[in-house]
């Protein structure tokens, strides 16, 4: 097999080579390959038909990168793993895309790896999303989790590590039966110039509750694309928080459907970016059933020449009366060269709804900095306090204190390592 692959053609060639050896439905893969061949990487070539949903993020750097999936590991997995300071809880660890039982600690809930039991799921749209098509074409491993009715699955950590210049396409499927509960901590990190292109789907049945906390702490040379689909039934809750701090370029896309009466969805996030990092948080919330609630608080802290993107679309179907939707996107620009693109969209077909959204962009307040300094707090610490205060509203939404403290440590680390 060739040593390196580059661009859409490279991915398609990889598919040709692997065809027949990949687990799961080969027809679905072939259809996905056709869709990916037609669409290509968003922004990957100059003359490409532009996708509105990729208006602010171009994957040209991904298209130009050279991946070497067969090269030997260049970095120690133990080093990367210990840097993450994972919680003392069950963990499923994937290294360069493959499940590693030796590094994992299986949970008490149902678990199967995608490699042994390929579950493509039912919520994804490979024909509309080129990166989902790419994943569907090449996915070779991932996690299928199943929490039985009324079972409390506790905390499960889903960890993806990269040790070399590789393209990884994890495929996860998480199902919560009626009344079940789970806190899923999804962590990704690594070293090298790699692409992590995850597709995950979440089925939250009646009265079930899924808390999904993500930490994206990829290598500064890495690309991170994640597309998640959640479907929440009557009285169920999908409560998510995403912290994006790593990667050269990241795109986190979430599609959440409130499908049953009284469903609740929280899509909260924080992005902390510096240098020339690009971080895109894109969400689509579909209110299909009546009396549902959706909440979004998204905070961007942008320094140096970094660029943040937030696209938040809320759709309220005709039958989704008494919908309660709230969306707030805020950016704190720590440098005059930092940039935020924000695109909120409301599409409402029901007549009795409460939907609000807002966007703010600002800098640290000079008076607040002076107030702290006049009390003896050094300037760097004063700025750190104010940045954390800005983030507090989003982080406070993480109810589990252990998890919140763990996220706060990542915020501290980010602040400590960035240039003042």
């Amino acid at each position, binding site marked *: 097999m060739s040593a390196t692959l580059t661009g859409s053609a490279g991915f398609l060639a990889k598919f040709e080579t692997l065809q027949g050896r990949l687990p799961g439905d080969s027809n679905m893969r072939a259809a996905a390959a056709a869709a990916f061949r037609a669409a290509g990487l968003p922004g990957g070539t100059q003359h490409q038909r532009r996708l509105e949903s990729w208006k602010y993020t171009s994957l040209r750097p991904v298209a130009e990168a050279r991946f070497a999936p067969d090269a030997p590991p260049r970095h120690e997995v133990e080093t990367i793993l210990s840097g993450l300071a994972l919680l003392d809880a069950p963990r499923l660890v994937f290294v360069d895309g493959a499940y590693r039982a030796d590094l994992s600690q299986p949970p008490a809930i149902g678990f199967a790896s995608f490699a042994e039991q390929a579950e493509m799921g039912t919520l994804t749209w490979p024909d509309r999303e080129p990166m989902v098509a790419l994943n569907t074409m090449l996915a070779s491993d991932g996690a299928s989790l199943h929490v039985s009715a009324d079972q409390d699955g506790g905390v499960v950590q889903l960890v993806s590590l990269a040790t070399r210049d590789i393209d990884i396409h994890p495929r996860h499927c998480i199902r919560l039966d009626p009344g079940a509960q789970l806190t899923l901590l999804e962590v990704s990190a690594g070293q090298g110039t790699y692409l992590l292109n995850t597709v995950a789907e979440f089925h939250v049945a009646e009265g079930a509750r899924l808390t999904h906390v993500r930490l994206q702490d990829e290598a500064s040379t890495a690309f991170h694309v994640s597309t998640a689909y959640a479907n929440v039934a009557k009285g169920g809750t999908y409560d998510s928080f995403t912290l994006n701090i790593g990667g050269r370029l990241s795109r986190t896309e979430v599609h959440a459907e409130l499908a049953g009466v009284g469903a609740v969805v929280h899509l909260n996030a924080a992005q902390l970016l510096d240098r020339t990092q690009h971080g895109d948080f894109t969400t689509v919330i579909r209110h299909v059933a009546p009396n549902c609630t959706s909440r979004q608080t998204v905070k961007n802290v942008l320094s140096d020449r970094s660029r943040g993107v937030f696209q938040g679309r809320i759709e309220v179907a005709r039958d989704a009366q008494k919908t309660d939707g709230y969306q707030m996107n805020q950016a704190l620009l720590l440098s005059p060269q930092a940039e935020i693109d924000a695109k909120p969209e409301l599409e409402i077909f029901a007549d009795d709804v409460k939907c609000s959204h807002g966007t703010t962009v600002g800098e640290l307040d*000079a*008076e*607040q900095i*002076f*107030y*702290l*300094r*006049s*009390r*003896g*707090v*050094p*300037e760097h*610490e*004063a700025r750190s*306090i*104010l940045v*954390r*205060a*800005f*983030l*507090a*509203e989003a982080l406070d939404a993480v109810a589990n204190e252990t998890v919140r403290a763990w996220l706060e440590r990542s915020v501290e680390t980010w602040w400590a390592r960035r240039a003042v």
Partner: protein
Amino acid sequence: MLDIRGLAASIVGKPILKGIDLTVPEGEVHAIMGPNGSGKSTLGYVLSGREDYEVTAGSVTFNGIDLLGMEPEQRAAAGVFLAFQAPIELPGVNNANFLRTALNALRRSRGQDELDAVQFLKLARAESKRLAMPEDMLKRNVNVGFSGGEKKRNEVLQMAILRPKLAILDETDSGLDIDALRIVADGVNALRGPDFSALVITHHQRLLDHLVPNRVHVLAHGRIVRSGGPELAKELEKSGYAGLIAEAA
């Protein structure tokens, strides 16, 4: 002691202070009075190091060191404290954490051990009780949702905990009722001693009944136009500033 010589300062090119000479010996409380716009608050800001004011002439030494060459946090470490006329709100910053961070930053810079959360809370609770502050003020975000009087008392609480050598109180009495005024005055009086001095900026004689100054200075058009003993404040209360300003002009 605080020694101000020929201090001139401007903001966005507009001169506000036009040559201030003022000496506050250790252990003394001096009041600064004067009409609105005379430069009283600017003096407080310049002494504590706010960056948007430009010092164009003069010097300020505090216990022999050049105050104007120091960053705001270094001045705080040296013992300077400004009670803000309009205390700043810090949404998302817990008041107790704020106070502990400030106290520990000062202790670090003075080579003292930091206080842990338990030690600090014991101190903060005792001080807030002495100032008759509701205990939940420590749990709330800094000055957020505080009434005008609560904000002023929070400034005095910070002063009580940080124990400055020089306190500059910028109209800390404005907007306070009689009881709160007495609490603020008592808070300052409690710190009085040979190592403590204060500059009390005020419009009203009322505060000075409880917080009796050693000297009173009248600031007008960026200069001190008259200095005297505590009786000067009483005289001003009767006759106003008009005569003094005309005299100076």
